[in-house]
């Protein structure tokens, strides 16, 4: 049962502060929706959790244990439990779809190839790509590549899945197929943190929504409250702009 707590987190890019005093809790089975204007630090939160950007203050606590990002072994251990899908799918271009999904479990984690391939086939079928196993990424559409990236993350059997604007690079027709995949995961009880500009989707799928601005958490609550009755002025103006859109 994963439980991720972020406490008083500050992060900088060089001298520029990007996150300040951030508190966040992702409890087991929750789907936390992260929204906010561009540049508010949503991606940075995910990058910091994964150890791509070291926190400059505060702590990230996984199951009651503070993660020490200075220790590569702890970062690796965390990455075994927390998987991420980025906006740009970042598939390995020299590998087929099936290889993309299998390489980490087989080559990095040493699980038996046969077992992993069976599981990969099942995952790829689940995201609607059963017939693309031996295609290369550059032979797929954006939506298909993004679904491969999701299958690749799921093949790690993560306890927590972080999704960063996974539909932002997609044509509108392709968005819904990716959202369907995520909806399914939420229903199955996957613990997730989802960054998205698809407000309707965030509202529908999240158990809790966090609104961020300028590297701070402005407001947090159930989707109905954040979207229908926001307490903070910043949230109100963001939500009304988005909805009028």
């Amino acid at each position, binding site marked *: 049962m994963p439980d991720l707590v972020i406490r008083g987190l500050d992060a900088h890019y060089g001298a520029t502060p990007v996150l300040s005093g951030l508190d966040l809790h992702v409890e087991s089975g929750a789907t936390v929706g992260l929204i906010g204007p561009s540049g508010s630090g949503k991606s940075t939160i995910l990058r910091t959790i994964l150890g*791509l950007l070291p926190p400059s203050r505060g702590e990230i606590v996984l199951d009651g244990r503070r993660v020490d990002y200075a220790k590569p072994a702890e970062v690796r251990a965390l990455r075994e439990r927390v*998987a991420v899908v980025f906006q740009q799918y970042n*598939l*390995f*271009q*020299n590998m087929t779809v099936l290889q993309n999904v299998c390489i980490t479990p087989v080559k*990095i*984690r040493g699980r038996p190839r046969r077992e992993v391939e069976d599981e990969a086939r099942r995952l790829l079928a689940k995201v609607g790509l059963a017939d693309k196993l031996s295609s290369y990424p550059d032979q797929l559409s954006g939506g298909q590549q993004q679904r491969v990236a999701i299958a690749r993350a799921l093949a790690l059997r993560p306890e927590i899945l972080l999704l960063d604007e996974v539909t932002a690079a997609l044509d509108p027709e392709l968005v819904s197929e990716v959202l369907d995949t995520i909806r399914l995961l939420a229903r199955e009880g996957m613990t997730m943190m989802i960054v998205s500009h698809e407000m309707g989707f965030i509202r529908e799928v999240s158990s809790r929504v966090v609104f961020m601005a300028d590297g701070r958490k402005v407001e947090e609550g159930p989707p109905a409250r954040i979207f229908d009755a926001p307490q903070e002025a910043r949230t109100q103006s963001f939500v009304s702009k988005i909805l009028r859109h």
Partner: protein
Amino acid sequence: MGYTFQFGQVWPFLPRLFDAALVSLQLALLAFCGGLLLGTAGAAIRTYGGAWARRAVKLYVTAFTNTPQLVQIYFLYFALPDAGLVLSSFTAVLIGMTLNAGAYLTEIQRAGFESARRSELEAAAVLGFSRLQQIRYVVLPHAMRVLLPPLSSHFIIMTLGTSMAAVFGVEELTGEALTLSSQTFRSVEVFLIVAGFYVALTLLASLAISLFARAAFRVRVRPL
């Protein structure tokens, strides 16, 4: 004018030339594979290594790419016995060619290393790949695709460069040709045949490298 070709005297020696060609090919292949290992390590260090390691590799590359290969091999040939290492001339030439190739291939591969997309490397890191695993599974396959043409032409230069070994008495193609031409006095015929052998070798060489790339890195070379 009018030179009458007389291949008759030379034909019986064809098997000897063939054996010699195999020695040339062996020398080129071994030196190239060794050089590829050195060059891969060198390029990895130049790209990801610490300051001192990078400087050491740079010194090695500078030293070997700015002096004639013949001089390098002579140096090994005469210096190593003084250091208590007596080598056959084949081994001395092989070591010399390997070190030389390592230096050039470091430079050639460095460009390829930079061709892996940063985003793919980041994805690998987030998936838990170690630095070495990132190089093995992400950087090298990309690099090989970019590098196949320059690597293959360097291999051909090396294959032809094995003729240098004749100077050290290695019985490779050129050495054998020199011996034969003085035995038969049919130098023109001998060297014509030998030229044909070299052409065959270089064709074989480019085939070998593309098979190697495919086996080692599963590089698909396909039109984009």
